[in-house]
């Protein structure tokens, strides 16, 4: 049996040069603004952009798969157990173990990372889309049928719009958890905000950990805020209440 690849050894570690840095850096104080300034363009910004890309691809692909699966299940109930079981199993595999399983197949690539990230979005997205569709009141569906809407018209004009709140709730959880999880991508590829964190962890270099970690949190907050705004724009009816 070949030993599993030791992932981190594949990359040349970047060791901060304590000798040439400022006093703050050499003494490894809690936070050194000058280091951030000097390394923003070369280290931090690229990592942030990569992180955004990893997240967006994972959520878009995950949503497409979950959406298709939910639509199939909505029509044909018998697919629910297989889909749900599969996505639940994927969800429970620890990310480290999943990487170990995938690397022999897809290598130390973005593909490996994305397969894992997509896998983790499936359960929450699938369940929420399906729940949203199933939450459409029976009287609304009967009225739609009675007025002569076709199945497709009912789906796109009635069922999906009414499922938007549940779908958006799932999307918010999926996006935030993917942003958090994408830091682990650094085990496989030198990309994303996880990479500077890993590098800094080795040297216990506080500034880099704080900056990269802080950016990951900020990204999650911003993304979540944007989704809330999108949801409000899509569902003006959800906030409409009787005023009289």
């Amino acid at each position: 049996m070949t030993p599993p690849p030791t992932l981190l050894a594949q990359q040349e570690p970047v060791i901060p040069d304590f000798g040439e840095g400022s006093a703050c850096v050499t003494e490894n104080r809690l936070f050194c603004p000058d280091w951030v300034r000097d390394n923003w363009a070369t280290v931090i910004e690229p990592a942030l952009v990569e992180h955004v890309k990893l997240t967006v691809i994972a959520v878009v692909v995950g949503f497409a798969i979950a959406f298709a699966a939910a639509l199939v299940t909505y029509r044909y109930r018998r697919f629910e157990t297989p889909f749900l079981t599969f996505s639940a199993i994927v969800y429970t595999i620890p990310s480290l173990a999943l990487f170990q399983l995938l690397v022999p197949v897809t290598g130390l690539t973005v593909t490996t990372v994305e397969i894992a990230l997509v896998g983790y979005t499936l359960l929450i997205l699938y369940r929420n889309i399906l729940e949203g569709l199933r939450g459409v009141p029976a009287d609304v569906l009967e009225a739609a049928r009675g007025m002569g809407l076709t199945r497709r018209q009912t789906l796109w004009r009635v069922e999906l719009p009414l499922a938007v709140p549940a779908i958006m709730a799932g999307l918010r959880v999926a996006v935030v958890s993917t942003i958090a999880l994408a830091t682990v991508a650094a085990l496989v590829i030198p990309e994303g905000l996880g990479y500077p964190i890993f590098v800094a962890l080795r040297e216990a270099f506080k500034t880099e950990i704080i900056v990269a970690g802080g950016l990951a949190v900020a990204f999650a907050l911003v993304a979540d805020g944007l989704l809330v705004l999108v949801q409000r724009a899509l569902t003006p009816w959800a906030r409409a209440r009787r005023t009289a």
Partner: protein
Amino acid sequence: MSGAAAEIVFDHVTKRYPGRPEPAVRELTLTIPAGAICCLVGPSGAGKTTAMKMVNRLIDITDGDIRIGEQSVRALDLTELRRGIGYVIQQVGLFPHMTVADNVATVPRLLGWPKERIQARADELLDLVDLPAVDYRERFPAQLSGGERQRVGLARALASDPPAMLMDEPFGAVDPITRKRLQHELLRIQNEVRKTIIFVTHDIDEAILLADRIAILREGGVLAQYDTPEAILSHPADEFVERFIGADRGLKLLALKRLDELDLAPSDGGAPDGPRAPGSTTLRDALSLMITSGSRSLVVIDDAGRPTGVVTLDVLAELER
């Protein structure tokens, strides 16, 4: 299929569900004249909703045929058929994510009407159901009361000016006062639009108030009697109908007639303190008035309060013999 009301004919219509020995509707045959309101009444399990839903084929017909103005519903394309029949249900089923105007515009939009015509139609209908379009068109269903929702449901069903309407216990879920108001509203609207309406209810009083024809169904989907409210009240076909319409059928019958519809005996002015009532009073209320005032007769007066005639207990008692 739109515009003028059409006659609806049930021709030996039977509905059988697989695995059940007894049909839900058995050999139902009746003709609803164009522009009439026909109430389907009966106890639960009598198949009244089933019978109604076979008209727009929400339920498939097992045997027999239903024709709307000569056209068999079995021959029409399903979506086309349904878009040509107004449909109103008890829970209304408004689309919560659409404004009131968009809800009303549902079928015209499916039919591809031009935008201006859709908008004008929605406004016209909202005004018709007494929800001023300027105030209501941009609201969402969550911002309406139960009664207002049902009005919007009615407007939505009328949108494409269909020749026929199906109403499934439309006023069953609103409070009694709102129900009364909606019932009279429906009669007023029907006076304007003249549709052929099939109206399912379990409330015989509602049927008597609204219907031009009442079809009473019994368990097993058998038609017990089909006639005008007057005829059913004065000549119930059998014991089942008699029990169903209630022991007070004599009073219900009196409620259908007004004093000014009678040939009144000339008035001698009556006792000065005797009961008086205007000609628009129902015979039932007139009877009640005589009883509460301890009098065997009542003076009918015109708008100016002048006596136009007199009615007696004997006249009322003889009336329906």
